[in-house]
């Protein structure tokens, strides 16, 4: 999870904005209360989306409480409390950050990474015990992805699928009791959002990966030759890449339209329409 999935605030209502932030703070506090201070640093907005999405499908109403945040001590804030989804997502967030850390170490061994890995390893172990069924699946997808990266796979769909499946599994694990048909649709939505995160992140990394000589699915797919002008290469592949980034979003929104009106959430809609659109345009135009 990389923090790509965000809302588009100009189109959010104030009450939705408050709810969205209450989830963020709820997850942050859930980590603090159950895992301690340091893992709080791993929190990002992707997991907030998942929590809101899961709760909206479950039609779950939340309890909120007021508090003061250490980062913004003057403001009164709200947080979601006593929520299984929030606790679950808080755990998964730590687990995925731990996996990301291991991945970073493969690319670059520095003192910071190595020492935090030692520290995070304890959490990884505990979470593998607590969610054995799910973490086995996630580990398998990560392993598949590592193999494809090692082979310098030029099938971008296949590589993206590893990540997409992780997001799908994480969502469905929290929604075991829902109707089969709905589960299918929700799974596909999660898959497509995951697919987008991977393809968007990889596109964003093209320059970096060329400079470091690392694997990037776009370079393999479109046959980048060493020493070629990066801007020219990106211009040449832009149209197809624009398709690759928008295809999963189109599919996700089409699927979301099929869901019962009462299960739809304005925050989820805001994210999969405006939020991800805004982000995609920025990535394609090379803005940060």
């Amino acid at each position, binding site marked *: 999870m990389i923090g790509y999935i965000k809302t588009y605030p100009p189109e959010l209502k104030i009450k939705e904005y408050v709810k969205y932030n209450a989830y963020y703070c709820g997850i942050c506090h859930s980590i603090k209360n159950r895992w301690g201070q340091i893992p709080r640093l791993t929190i990002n907005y992707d997991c907030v989306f998942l929590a809101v999405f899961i709760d909206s499908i479950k039609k779950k109403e939340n309890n909120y409480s007021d508090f003061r945040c250490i980062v913004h001590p003057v403001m009164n804030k709200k947080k979601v409390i006593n929520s299984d989804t929030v606790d679950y997502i808080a755990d998964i967030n730590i687990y995925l950050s731990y996996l990301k850390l291991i991945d970073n170490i493969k690319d670059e061994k520095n003192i910071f990474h190595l020492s935090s890995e030692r520290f995070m390893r304890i959490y990884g172990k505990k979470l593998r015990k607590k969610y054995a069924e799910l973490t086995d699946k996630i580990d398998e997808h990560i392993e598949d992805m590592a193999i494809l990266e090692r082979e310098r796979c030029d099938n971008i*769909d296949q590589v993206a699928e590893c990540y997409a499946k992780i997001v799908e599994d994480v969502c469905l694990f929290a929604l075991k009791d829902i109707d089969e048909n709905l589960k299918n649709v929700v799974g596909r939505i999660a898959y*497509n959002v995951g697919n987008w995160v991977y393809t968007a992140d990889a596109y964003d990394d093209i320059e970096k990966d060329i400079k470091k000589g690392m694997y990037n699915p776009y370079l393999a797919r479109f046959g980048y030759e060493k020493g070629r002008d990066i801007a020219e290469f990106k211009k040449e592949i832009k149209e197809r890449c624009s398709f690759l980034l928008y295809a999963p979003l189109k599919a996700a929104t089409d699927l979301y339209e099929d869901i019962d009106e009462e299960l739809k959430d304005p925050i989820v809609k805001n994210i999969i329409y*405006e939020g991800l659109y805004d982000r995609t345009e920025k990535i394609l135009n090379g803005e940060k």
Partner: protein
Amino acid sequence: MDPYKVLGVNRNDSDETIKKAYRELVKKYHPDKYTDTDLKDLANEKLQQVNMAYDTIVKNRKSKDYGYSYDESSYKGSFAEVRRHILNRNYAAADNILRNSTNRNAEWHYLRGVIFQKQGWYDQAYSYFEKAHLMDPSNPEYATAYSQTRSTANAYRSNVYTRGYSSADEDFCRLCQCLLCTSLCCR
């Protein structure tokens, strides 16, 4: 058994109506909808009857050259079974038949494209639709699939804009405009 009765349609109904009735029934009896094993078996049985009835009608009408339409003509191809699996969302079975087929014509490429698209393998889907269209440019089914794929980004974009999205910069312009108007009015 009268195939028309199975689908609950009249003999004189158009191909379109029959297809619609067929689709409805497939949806109704889709085994995924039932968790009870007895019900599931029953649904499966019904589904097979429906499939057979539909195939019979299509075949009969074809031989009489009744109400020819392009969509129906595609069922004449060797891939009728594949299309049925796709309709039932049984992509693995459909893919399996295609992989083992040696007849790799335009329709073969098109159908693989459909399966890839359903699976979320969009880059592959794009390439296969493109190939199908190049192999048989006169076929409207492949042409539509290809042009829809090409315009995916625009389709999504227009969905976003119909919801009322406006970029932050535009908002700022509008704010200025609004202020200007107010100041003019209040003068």
